[in-house]
């Protein structure tokens, strides 16, 4: 269980990005954070992974205060983080990255299983360098795979995992997320705008302008959220007008 209590984060310029955020990410559940661009979602993910330090508030992992822990210590405690923009390396290949994450040697079969979850065929990618030769979608899927391979994971954070992923691979990914929460009892936190991911979530939090606008069980939030989105797409009366013109 990951608890975020009254978390605030401010840029050096003084701009407040997150204001007094409180959330719970329960074990074996999938929590989706959604909301408009620039609302603070990625900043929250970075605070959880330790890439940034909050100006106030606390982050608790299984009731232990990890707010002051560095990235490495948090990772060793079980927090995984898949970057929104995949990181590329000159000289590290897919096997290297997955073995670093798993903290052990992996057989070809192990690697095949992990890559299969993101819709990649291991034989083609096992020795591929994680560099500019990979397409954006390939790099993104390998980034996600590196988190799926993580040893002793408790809380896995994925920042817009759907970005750049084709429909077929995305279905595999959805299956992988569902397995992680139901079979492996991991806590999943996914930042996403994708309806399919919202649909498999247990909880949804909407963050906008640095505050939690709404938070609750999917059944409570999703309908309202999709209604809002539709209303945003079709401002009051406009859909009627369009229909009349059709």
């Amino acid at each position, binding site marked *: 269980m990951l608890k975020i209590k009254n978390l605030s984060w401010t840029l050096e310029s003084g701009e407040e990005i997150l204001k007094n955020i409180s959330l719970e990410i329960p074990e074996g559940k999938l929590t989706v954070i959604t909301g408009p661009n620039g609302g603070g979602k990625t900043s929250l993910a970075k605070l959880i992974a330790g890439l940034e330090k909050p100006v106030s508030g606390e982050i608790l992992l299984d009731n232990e205060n990890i707010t002051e822990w560095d990235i490495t210590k948090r990772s060793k405690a079980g927090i995984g983080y898949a970057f929104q923009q995949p990181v590329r390396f000159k000289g*590290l290949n897919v096997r290297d990255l997955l073995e670093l994450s798993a903290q052990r040697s992996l057989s070809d079969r192990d690697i095949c299983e992990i890559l299969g979850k993101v819709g990649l065929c291991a034989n083609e990618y096992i020795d591929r360098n994680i560099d500019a030769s990979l397409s954006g979608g390939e790099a993104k899927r390998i980034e996600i795979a590196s988190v799926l391979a993580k040893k002793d994971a408790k809380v896995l954070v994925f920042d817009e995992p759907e970005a750049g992923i084709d429909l077929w691979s995305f279905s595999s990914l959805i299956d992988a997320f569902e397995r992680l929460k139901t079979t492996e009892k991991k806590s999943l936190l996914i930042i996403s705008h994708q309806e399919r991911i919202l649909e498999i979530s247990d909880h949804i939090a909407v963050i906008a302008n640095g505050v939690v606008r709404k938070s609750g069980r999917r059944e409570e939030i999703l309908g309202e959220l999709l209604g809002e989105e539709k209303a945003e797409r079709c401002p009051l009366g406009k859909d009627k007008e369009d229909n009349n013109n059709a």
Partner: protein
Amino acid sequence: MLDKTTEELLGIVSDWSGKFNGAYNIRSNGECAGRQSSENILIENKPDNPGLVIRIKPGTKGETVYIPACVTKGGINDLVYNDFYVGEGADVIIVAGCGVHTADGHDVRHHGIHRFILAKGSRVLYKEKHIGTGAGGGAKRIDPVTEIEQGEDSYLEMDTIQIGGVDSTYRKTSGRLGKGAKLVIKERIMTDGNQTANTDFAVELDGEDSGADIVSRSVAKGNSYQEYHSKISGNNRCKGHSECDAILADNGKVNAAPELYAGSLDAELIHEAAIGKIAGEQIIKLQTLGLSEEEAEKKIIEGFLRG
């Protein structure tokens, strides 16, 4: 009988495990410490200078010849000339690593001048590893010179790495390629402390459809300094590519000066260069996988130099 230090250095630079299979010559402290020719690879003393003449018979396939050199006593300045004649259609591996060691406060130097003459259609994988070891303050220096002449449709791949511990090196490589010949060079250099490394490549693409691909990756740590210079001259219809990537750490410094000369309208020449510290996001990514900052940096450098 080889001393322990020489055996250790041979293990690092030439995969020695108590013996070599096939033709070899071990040079230790300026003298021959063991030699064996094979049916297809003849190794003889060079008549005019210290060193060897290695003749590989035409059509020789799948053989490896080992020509390592070690200097393990301070005060030795070892100069050697080795000429390799590779017969038509041969396809072989040449291993020629070098290790220098000093622990008595005196300087050591190995200066190896290797000439490769490749006949038509021959193929060579040339592997060269360099390392310096030992404390005591004596300077460890390795200055390799590689001169390559490639005949029609020949292929040479040079895989050269300076693992570390060499205080100063001047690495000069030149090549002249005939029709359809291909030269591939992969260089990796690590310097630290106050070490210096100077690399100089000069390749003349004389033959029609000849090609060269030079990739140099280096890491400059501590207060070390590296210079990279390459010149590819396209004198005919040809393709040339050079790439110089360097990672800086601490106060390391790198000066890269690539040069391309197109002497023919049909020469296609490309150069890429990138120098900088390790990208912060790379270190952070590996930290999110559980590595410390130091472990992440080490892993990134290992991978970078592995290529």
